[in-house]
């Protein structure tokens, strides 16, 4: 393992310390509970947005804290969900009297820990907490026989859109309903060209030969469902988009936000090349692209690979997407 680290056990806290030092005007970081806060939180009268998950997916979630997006992000250990104490602390700290929305990715650990936190928050402080669970990964057969679809790329788009709605002062019920609608309107699929190395594990999670790739990965370096022979980008884009388009709930002529995301070890050159392929496939399928996002936003450490997310949007969602956002990881209109 060759990484820019000191001690594998100190990676998260030292990275959070750096994040705080890099954004002193916008963020405040609680290093004990490992929570990243918007500096001006709690914002009175605004619904508080709390998300979180394992570290190693940067900029998600800590990099999406700020005006127009999250109020707080709880950082777990690398690829490990945070614990209920962190979510409790965050929930109490960001409640500006209008309640709190938990944005949870559908992974067993994240769901269980947020569930315990919501139970405790209700018993402990009476804060009105609602929860949305993202589950957009079409690689997973959505049946009784798995833990359900994983939450992947849609999480980023949801945090932006719902963050804007909360910023605009919409009430909790409305914000939570919108979150559910966004969550249900998006689909994703990812692939890996290499494994990543979890610092505390010290070696790659899985091995991939030079001439093969893993189709249908999640965001934790866990292997996907299928290992396939490597192919040109055009064919990889087709393999990602075909199942996404087949499952995307979308009215005729309805536009999408198209999101090509890097897993951490793939340069923008290749991501834009992939986006080019995506635009051609969508053009052929008669799917208009209303907005787009290309870059590494929900990563798996240094894994090479990418994911494609499509979100079917209406005018309200597009307006909220365009609204100002000012976070370390996403910034426009300010």
């Amino acid at each position, binding site marked *: 393992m060759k990484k820019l680290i000191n001690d594998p*056990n100190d990676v998260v806290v030292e990275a959070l310390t750096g994040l705080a030092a890099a954004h002193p005007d916008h963020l405040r970081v609680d290093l004990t509970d490992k929570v990243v806060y918007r500096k001006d939180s709690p914002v009175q009268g605004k619904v508080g947005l709390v998300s979180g998950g*394992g570290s190693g997916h940067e900029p998600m979630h800590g990099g999406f804290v700020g005006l127009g997006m999250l109020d707080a992000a709880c950082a*777990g*250990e*690398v*690829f*490990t*969900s*945070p*614990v*209920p*104490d962190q979510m409790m602390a965050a929930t109490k700290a960001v409640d500006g009297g209008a309640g709190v929305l938990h944005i949870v990715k559908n*992974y*067993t*650990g994240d769901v*269980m*820990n947020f*569930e*315990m936190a919501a139970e405790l928050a209700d018993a402990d402080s009476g804060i009105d907490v609602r929860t949305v669970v993202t589950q957009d990964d079409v*690689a*997973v*057969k959505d049946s*009784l*026989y*798995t*833990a359900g679809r*994983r939450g992947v790329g849609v999480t980023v788009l949801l945090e932006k859109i719902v963050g804007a709605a909360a910023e605009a002062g919409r009430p909790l019920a409305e914000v939570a309903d919108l979150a559910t609608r966004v969550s249900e309107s998006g689909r994703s699929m990812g692939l890996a060209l290499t494994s990543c190395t*979890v610092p*505390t*594990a010290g070696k790659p*999670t*899985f091995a991939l030969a030079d001439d093969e790739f893993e189709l249908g990965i*999640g965001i*934790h*370096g*866990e*292997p*996907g*469902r299928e290992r396939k022979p490597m192919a040109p980008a055009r064919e990889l884009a087709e393999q990602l988009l075909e199942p996404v388009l087949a499952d995307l709930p979308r009215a005729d002529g309805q536009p999408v936000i198209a999101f090509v995301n890097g897993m951490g070890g793939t340069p923008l050159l290749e991501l834009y090349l992939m986006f080019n392929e995506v635009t051609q496939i969508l053009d052929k399928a008669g799917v208009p692209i209303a907005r787009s996002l290309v870059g590494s936003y929900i990563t798996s450490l240094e894994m090479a690979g990418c994911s494609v997310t499509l979100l079917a949007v209406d005018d309200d969602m597009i307006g909220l997407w365009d609204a100002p956002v000012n976070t370390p990881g996403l910034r426009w209109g300010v």
Partner: protein
Amino acid sequence: MATQQRFVDWLGDLAEVMAREQGALTDLDSAIGDADHGSNMARGTAAVADLLDDEFADTATLLKKAGMTLVSTVGGASGPLYGTFFMRMAGPLAGIEDVSAAELGAALRAGVEGVQQRGKAEPGDKTMYDAWLPALEAYDAAVAADADIAAALEAAATAAAQGRDATEPWVAKKGRASYLGERSAGHIDPGAASTTLLLESAARTLR
């Protein structure tokens, strides 16, 4: 009859076991999960070991505190599951000074039911529950045949190990491993492996 000191010994031993076995657990997890089970369990049980110099009103208070500490430090799915196990285990032991074999059985049952409720796992889903359930049944059977705590825990640990090994050919239906579908077959479930270590540790220390 197990005194509070025996439970202290158990939790201390458990931290040593998890520190020693974390690489092996993480290897199992790398195969079908996300390569963090060993380090998570080592971190959580080490935090529990740090409590052991404190004084506790009774064994139940100790176990409850241990469970809360695991919930607060382990993360992932294992934190809520093992944390719930110890917190629920505390219930039937409230106010009991020297724990009898039958009383420990009631506590184990409460703990295992907590694991099942929190994880919503069924037998055969390829989870830690596949080690917990046979262990509980073996414990109860041994106590029914007049075994003492040590012998009953021996039987439970052996049954857990058999349950752990039985998970190897199965397709996972819960947790991270379920995303692999058929490819999860051929690997032992990491949670069933750590559960077996926990019961083997109990068999060594509680008597």
